[in-house]
């Protein structure tokens, strides 16, 4: 995260780290159920074998495992069948864990939005991750507040890429607060009335975040995929066992 700040441990209990040896943290991810995690499809490019991955929950400092940490292996990776790596559209995937997580204060699922519940432009939301900070990779989870930007306005920043309805843009023209390499798959969450937090986006792509080319970040629009997510969870829970 560029322009963010270090998070307090447990503040974002749905944030997880998708890890693979020998590199360790590769991408962010989001807990949506006891056995289910969302991330983006591009995290698995060239690494689609579930056996090479593990998912770490309840962690704040990647370098210092905490007592609240839970680790699970990956049983199944479900990539969106329309994922297109050339244009980074339909950039979403579901990860089935080998066993349920234990819900604690530090490990809790986020709510999914309703199918037609899109977040309005100018809403302020939060992004989190262990991605690049512009000058270094952090050990501690970072958080940043970003503003939702309309698709039309977002398109004007990215002449060479088409911004589709499967995407959501958030950030600032000057790129002051933005996601960066290593944040991919992590959450963009907004607080709803009643203090409940809902997952509206997954960090997907943007300009080279610490270069001269700035602009907002582009996130996978979770509301667009809710029906697909629910169906995949149903199929892989009840029908394909």
């Amino acid at each position, binding site marked *: 995260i560029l322009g963010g700040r270090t998070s307090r441990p*447990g503040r974002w209990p749905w944030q997880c780290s998708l890890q693979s040896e020998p590199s360790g943290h590769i991408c962010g991810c989001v807990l949506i159920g006891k056995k289910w995690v969302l991330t983006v499809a591009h995290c698995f490019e060239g690494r689609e074998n579930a056996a090479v991955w593990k998912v770490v929950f309840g962690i704040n400092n990647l370098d210092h495992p905490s007592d609240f940490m839970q680790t699970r292996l990956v049983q199944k990776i479900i990539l969106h069948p329309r994922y297109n790596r050339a244009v980074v559209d339909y950039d979403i995937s579901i990860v089935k864990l080998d066993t349920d997580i234990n819900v604690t204060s530090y490990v809790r699922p986020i709510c999914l939005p309703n199918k037609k519940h899109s977040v309005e432009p100018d809403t302020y939301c939060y992004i989190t991750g262990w991605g690049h900070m512009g000058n270094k990779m952090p050990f501690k989870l970072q958080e940043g507040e970003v503003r939702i930007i309309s698709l039309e306005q977002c398109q004007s920043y990215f*002449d060479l890429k088409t911004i589709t309805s499967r995407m959501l843009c958030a950030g600032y023209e000057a790129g002051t607060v933005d996601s960066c390499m290593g944040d991919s798959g992590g959450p963009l969450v907004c607080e709803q009335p009643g203090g409940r937090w809902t997952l509206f986006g997954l960090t997907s792509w943007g*300009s080279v975040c610490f*270069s001269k080319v700035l602009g907002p970040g582009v996130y996978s629009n979770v509301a667009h995929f809710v029906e697909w997510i629910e169906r995949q969870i149903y199929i892989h829970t*009840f*029908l*394909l066992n």
Partner: protein
Amino acid sequence: CINSTCSGSCGSSLNCETHQNQTNCGQCEPITLELCMNLPYNYTHFPNYLGHRTQKESSISWESSLFPALVQTNCYKYLMFFACTILVPKCDPQTTQRIPPCRSLCELSKERCESVLGIVGLQWPEDTDCSQFPEEKSDNQTCLMPDDDVEECSPSHFKCRTGRCVLMSRRCDGHADCEDDSDEENCGCSQRGLWECPSNKLCIKHTMICDGFPDCPDQVDEKNCSSCKDDELECANHDCVPRDQWCNGHLDCRDSSDEWNCVSLSKSVNSTTFLTIHKSAADYHVCADEWQEDLSQLACNQLGLGGPYMTETIEDHDQRNRQNWLRLHSDWKNKNASTFHELLVKGQLCQSRQRIALLCTKEDCGRRPAARMNKR
């Protein structure tokens, strides 16, 4: 390197301990950079002349944004060709070495376009020192020059009738970008080789019609995609499956859509939520005979509601409903079923004449633990 240190690949020095940086070197690779897909050559060789090690690195580079933007100013007819010769250099299939652009092509590009960049406070890319490129030779073998018929615009550009290139994202956006407005002509979907959603004029690719994913708001792109017989139902992917196989607990549609939405809760006038099963294309009540609480949990889980639940049994003396009952299979405990609805059978008498109503609750989500209070 595999040992996770970073090094320039394919360099003259062997930076990785076990010479890993020399793998896959000396090979021509197909051009995948969309900007440069219409070049008179199809194979490239990396690193390129801007120091990028891969096409992916090239595609997200500053220069791959700069050149397409600069091309729109019409500063030099062959600017995009020059840009591509340094972004994705031509690979010589005989020698598997990259072929550079000619020095004069570089110099002309720089001479005509550098000043345009200066107007907006930007600099010509530092790594494009033209003296590194060879002079054009008489046999034209050592460096690249554009032919007359070379495409001036990249595939990411629209070519105005005047010859100017404007970005494809600006075509049909309601604003004229070509001097002759040609980027705002023929903006219908069909003229652009696309299909138009009738309700909102959205253009979608023909491959997106009848592919099982609705793209138009009214899902019209997924209608009339199959001709199922009267005794068949249409799967989401438009296969046809016999009605009696719908919600039978077995996957009959290839996309498993015959087993979706088989269990639901339907509200009655007094807001009781009756457990309803959609089987063989009809809705059924569930008889309370032999009911056990773990069945309520299974039904709620199948609805995606895994939280606490409450079961009620409601009397129903209306004999007209007799045909609409499903009863637990006599041997349901030994059936080893993964879904609730495959435990139920039609055509059995419901002796209790009571039907199941359920109240399922969603599992808790989206709550953060309260911050601990510390007296200061």
